[in-house]
């Protein structure tokens, strides 16, 4: 949810999900539950598995919806408000629906010195979106990222966990072309 969703207006009660309406045993898949329980078995508290739980659910569902958040919180026997505090703290947890491909463009110092601003313009023109936005067809989301550890091969970006480096205006277009072709194929 972006900042405007957190304005002073209360949510409309009829669509508000209450914690009681979700049964985490039904909501979470067997795989998700087993990963979470494995993590719990390593840690000394249930809530310590929270970040791992958010990540596994996001891996299968793309993002963390309010329902997912409530289900995970129930599973870990913590309040959903507390888990929301955790979820919103971390950069790689998405609390809003994202596209099939999430582009994380590095905007830190080495990429600044080697011209990520040009790459940003190319991506924005190609996709017609800015930071934090998703293309209307739901294929691409554009986000910034702090230093990706490819500073010797900057500018750099990461798309769905895959790293790309030494970016040029041309290479970034061909990467996006390649992904656009696959669009719709991926599950």
């Amino acid at each position, binding site marked *: 949810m972006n900042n405007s969703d957190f304005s002073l207006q209360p949510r409309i009660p009829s669509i508000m999900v209450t914690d009681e309406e979700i049964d985490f045993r039904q909501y979470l898949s067997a795989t998700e539950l087993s990963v979470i329980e494995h993590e719990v078995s390593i840690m000394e508290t249930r809530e310590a598995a929270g970040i791992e739980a958010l990540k596994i659910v996001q891996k299968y569902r793309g993002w963390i919806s309010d329902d997912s958040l409530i289900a995970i919180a129930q599973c870990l026997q913590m309040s959903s408000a507390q888990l929301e505090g955790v979820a919103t703290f971390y950069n790689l947890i998405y609390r809003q629906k994202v596209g099939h491909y999430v582009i994380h463009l590095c905007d830190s110092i080495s990429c600044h010195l080697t011209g990520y601003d040009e790459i940003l313009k190319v991506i924005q023109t190609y996709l017609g979106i800015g930071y934090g936005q998703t293309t209307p067809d739901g294929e691409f989301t554009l986000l910034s990222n702090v230093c990706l550890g490819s*500073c010797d091969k900057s500018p750099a970006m990461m798309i769905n966990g895959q790293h790309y480096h030494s970016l040029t205006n041309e290479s970034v277009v061909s990467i996006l072309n390649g992904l656009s072709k696959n669009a719709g194929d991926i599950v």
Partner: protein
Amino acid sequence: MTSKNWLAQALSQALTKPLTHLVNLDQPLDFEGYVQAGGYIGATKALTQLTPKEVLAIVSDSGLKGRGGAGFPTGMKWSCVPALQEQSNQAQPSYLICNGDEMEPGTFKDRYLLEGVPQQLIEAMIIASYTISADKAFLFLRGEYQLAATRLQQAIDQAYENNWLGKNIQGTNYQLDLYLHTSAGRYICGEETALINALEGKRAIPRAKPPFPQVSGLFGKPTVVNNVETLSNLPHILKHGSQWFKDLSPHSDPGTKMYSACGQVKNPGVWELPMGVTIRELLYDYAGGMKEGVKLKGLLPGGASTDFLVEQHLDTPMDFDSIAKAGSRLGTGGLIVLDDKHCPVAMVLNLLRFFAQESCGWCTPCRDGTPWAVEILTRIEQGKGSLADMAQLADLCDFMWLGKTHCALAPGAVEPLKSAMRYFKDDFEQHIELGCCPYQSNSNEQQQESQGVQPELAKRVTAGVNQGGENDE
């Protein structure tokens, strides 16, 4: 090169480049290959011939200092763990955490070790865990390093298969479980107490110290947090002895160091060199000097949170004391090189925007000071600044300095800012006098401002998907 040739070549450097001689980024050694190349000799020695206190004595004697940024002596850090204190025989077990968060802009040295020789880090963590009597160890890795995560998990699995992890390791009665935790991303997770909170599933906000983690850390137990590179030295110190380690460097700080260079240099990269090479050697002999057509303007010697150094400092040895004497910090040993065609104000603005975005928000000077500095720097970069702004920036540097915040993030933000205002004062003033940026390049720092860097939002600068909810708290 055939693998036999590769190995012969690698082994010929075993004594001079201990950390990296086995690095293979395309296909790192598996367990067997690593053992054949001399791996696990150090761990065997530690676990079967030495007591934890004897290992501690060797590591202390080697003079190894932490490579995570602060340069704290590793032996001294470990010796605070109750299990290693003279009086206690029955101390509770402790935790070892390897800090592989590496999110400091301009730093990519740990990645090289994590991806290139994962087995070495697992051996190192076993040695450290044994020494501090840990029965559980966590490898905390930044979430973006997915290739490293896959390789490290394989290395961990193979260590279990070969009885280097689990129960009765190599027939001893020592037992250790080692887990890989990949982070969900936030620079502050690299601060050791924030990291501990992250592992506990909380918001990664640092903890007040004391108590220090060695006494009360993860889940309230004694905990040691060490950097990837620091730990990676251990197998070699155990194998070749502390005197060998001291002899690696002609300077007072022993060992080798992972150095790197990025920015406006011809040949950016990462190199393992004897501790204390000069900045000049690193910049010209290894990084190939400045790119065609540009001159050196200044550099950050050890990542984003260190003070600028300039031409006159080029002959400074890159060791902890010498760099400190020159007015900066060795930090992570990663040069970030600025040329004369890029605007220093824009560079500092980029750095401060990073710190403002990544501040955890606990301390007022940092939470409010970093976005305030971003606001002022933006104004100056756009040519709308005044001399009063310079005075305000100087005040902010004081407000955010050491001792006024709970962790070193804010002072780390001050370092490049304050030093830039000193060495590049003319550039700042030119922006103010001309009413515009005298450098035509990199306008991006201005452009982004129009997308909504408000002081109150700057904490999470790029508002959007992953930044929601912060202002709700």
